[in-house]
């Protein structure tokens, strides 16, 4: 450890290594709490899905797999740019790091923008839970057939058997889960802004990059949540 690295060591730490390890462990523990936080929603999802599989099939079919798939690609790309930002910060390429952070933030905004489009569509189609919620599974089935999609026996049974109330339950969970994820994305964008300002100010170097590193962990975590949400909400109900 070089002597000038001590400038970044807070008064209560012995050395930079202790500080770095503490920052990392702290973030990992925070992510554990996040897993438990989302875990409550995942538990509710699992229980209701096992109780009302038909409603889940219909609910999934009413979500846009194109928008969801596009957003998944956007988030995966943002994880790459985030990793590049951390790497650049570690290797004293702070200008490159700033650019990668900007790119990460932009991809985050693209994701949120697409999410707004999706939510708006749901509002238009009365799929927001509450007094205005309305869904007619048979009409939706007819739409699928009109669109030229081959409807198998299995799928037909699901649409015939689904109770609109249970579909509302699906949408309650859809909005709670994706909404909570979006809140995390917004906080993540705020963190990116803070990192950008500090990077521009020259706070980080190969001697001190803990905030970039642990923010990266947070960003990847939020991505991973989506990697679970996308198949759970959009994909598996289609089979």
């Amino acid at each position, binding site marked *: 450890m070089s002597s000038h690295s001590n400038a970044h060591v*807070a*008064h*209560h*730490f*012995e050395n930079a290594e*202790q500080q770095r*390890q*503490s920052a990392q*462990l*702290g973030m990992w*523990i*925070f992510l*554990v*709490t*996040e897993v*438990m*936080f*989302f*875990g*409550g*929603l995942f*538990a*509710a999802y699992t*229980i*209701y899905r096992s*109780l*009302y599989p038909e409603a889940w099939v219909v609910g999934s079919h009413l979500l846009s797999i194109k928008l969801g798939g596009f957003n998944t690609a956007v988030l995966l790309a943002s994880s790459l740019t985030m990793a590049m930002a951390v790497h650049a910060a570690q290797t004293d390429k702070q200008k490159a790091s700033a650019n990668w952070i900007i790119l990460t933030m932009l991809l985050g905004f693209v994701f949120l923008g697409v999410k707004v489009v999706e939510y708006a569509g749901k509002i238009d189609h009365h799929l927001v*839970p*509450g*007094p205005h919620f309305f869904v007619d599974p048979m009409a939706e089935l007819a739409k699928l057939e009109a669109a030229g999609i081959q409807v198998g026996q299995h799928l037909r049974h699901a649409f015939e058997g689904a*109770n609109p*109330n*249970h579909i*509302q*339950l699906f949408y*309650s*969970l859809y*909005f*709670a889960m994706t909404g*909570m994820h979006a809140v995390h994305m917004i906080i993540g964008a705020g963190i990116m802004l803070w990192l950008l300002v500090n990077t521009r100010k020259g706070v980080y170097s190969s001697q001190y990059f803990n905030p970039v590193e642990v923010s990266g962990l947070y960003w990847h975590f939020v991505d991973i949540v989506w990697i679970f949400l996308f198949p759970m909400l959009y994909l598996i109900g289609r089979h």
Partner: protein
Amino acid sequence: MSAADTQLAAGDPPKHYLNNGLTIRSWLLSVDHKRIAILYLISLTIFFLLGGAAAALFRMDLVTPEADVLQSETYNKLFTMHGIVMIFFFLVPSIPAVMGNFLVPVMIGAKDVAFPRLNLLSWYVFMTGGLIALGAIIMGGVDTGWTFYTPYSSMYANSHVILAVAGAFIAGFSSIMTGLNFIVTIQKMRAPGLTWFRLPLFIWAMYATSLVVILGTPVVAITLVMIFVERFFGFGIFDPALGGDPVLFQHLFWFYSHPAVYIMILPSMGVVSEIISCFSRRRLYGYTFVAFSSLAIAVIGFFVWGHHMFVSSQSVYAGLVFSFLTFFVAIPTAIKMLNWVMTMYKGSVSFETPMLYAYGFLGLFVIGGLTGLFLSTMATDIHLHDTYFVVAHFHYVMVGGGVMGFLGALHFWWPKIIGKLYPEGWAKFAAIVIFIGFNLTFMPQFQMGYHGMPRRYHTYAEEFQVFHVMSTAGATVLGAGYLIMAAYLFWSLFKGKKASANPWDARGLEWETASPPPTENFLETPKVTQDAYAYDMPSVTCPPGAKSEAERV
């Protein structure tokens, strides 16, 4: 002469954390873990008084079988307020946020917790949550009970549920911040030579508590969010009309709130380990068993929540498993009990105030724990469920265990925290008053619960009056005990005798620095060369032959 004593003798007045900056700003913006502990102590005392006042009001009303002082609606709001304030704003943070904040860094020889600013933030978050919950009470109150059961809380309750839920939600984040801070601090910031098995058992207890906090609290947080979206946006996650299941709320709620009992009791167990070892002048018997039993309680405690739902539609088979696991969690607790008693056996046991609270803890917690077994037996639970028996049981655990531990800790470390000695005679008197008052309050509740008096009822059958009168009389004695304690502790702030670095001739790093400690705790980072509780060796700060200061008083 140790470094701490030299410092005491040389400087006049010595620089320590209390006089290092005297402005209000220097307190409210301090990142010193010791000052944050004091901020918590003051705020928790206020919450404790509020929660106690609510209890005093409804206990007064319960003297007669009819409603006399309160309307039923007010009665419901008062017991809800008592529960919310005492659990979320006193018991959960009590020992961790006050004693843990003060002691964890000092006991492990660190200058501060790993994230001092996060620590300060936790206090602000806690106060925000507390003020929002108080706001709900001032605006008219909440009547759901502290458990916020759906669908009552999500649909029917005509009171300020959203605000109270928001308060509890926000306060949860402050305990997460504290728990996260403790885990990182204990993992990464121990002094050289302080290996895991040399740590004081209080540290093990805080570590286990923090694990429960970080794993449990987020679950209740998201559960409260679900109530919020249901009530505010009209989503229907627990709405039976949509096929939602209100009992799912109970599962998610108790997944946190049963482990939360261990958040309230594990720290007390750590405190009792310190006190019993000190006042028996012996190494703690079976150190590793006590350490691992804390972790065992933390882990097993996560698999017992279903015992709250034996009578709410849970399957008998699930009930059997939860019943078995609940018995199972009693084992590590019993191990601790055995070890404490074995520590006292053939030790030089004495009767200072902290030790009186430790004795109180042992006796009351045994009753609280064993009556827990009545309730975890499905057959007897059918009879006892939702009666005063349950109320008495959890008060024996939370007050007899949690609060006794907190008061023991407060007295044991008061000289270290404040630098002054409290008056021992008054303190012993108050400890005995509190013990008698507590038992008089809650012992009759076992009896009336067994005879079928349901909890949370405003009016009751006349045959229960004698028990209620006893209970209210006991609560009065208990309240008097608390007030005596508050009075002499406040008095000792100004008039108490100066405490030396180690008034109890105790072992542990916190006794090797000055009382009160300097801002960064130690003048130089201590090196640890021996196990905890080396009462068979002379203390660093209290040379052999010198009587402890408490004895000289």
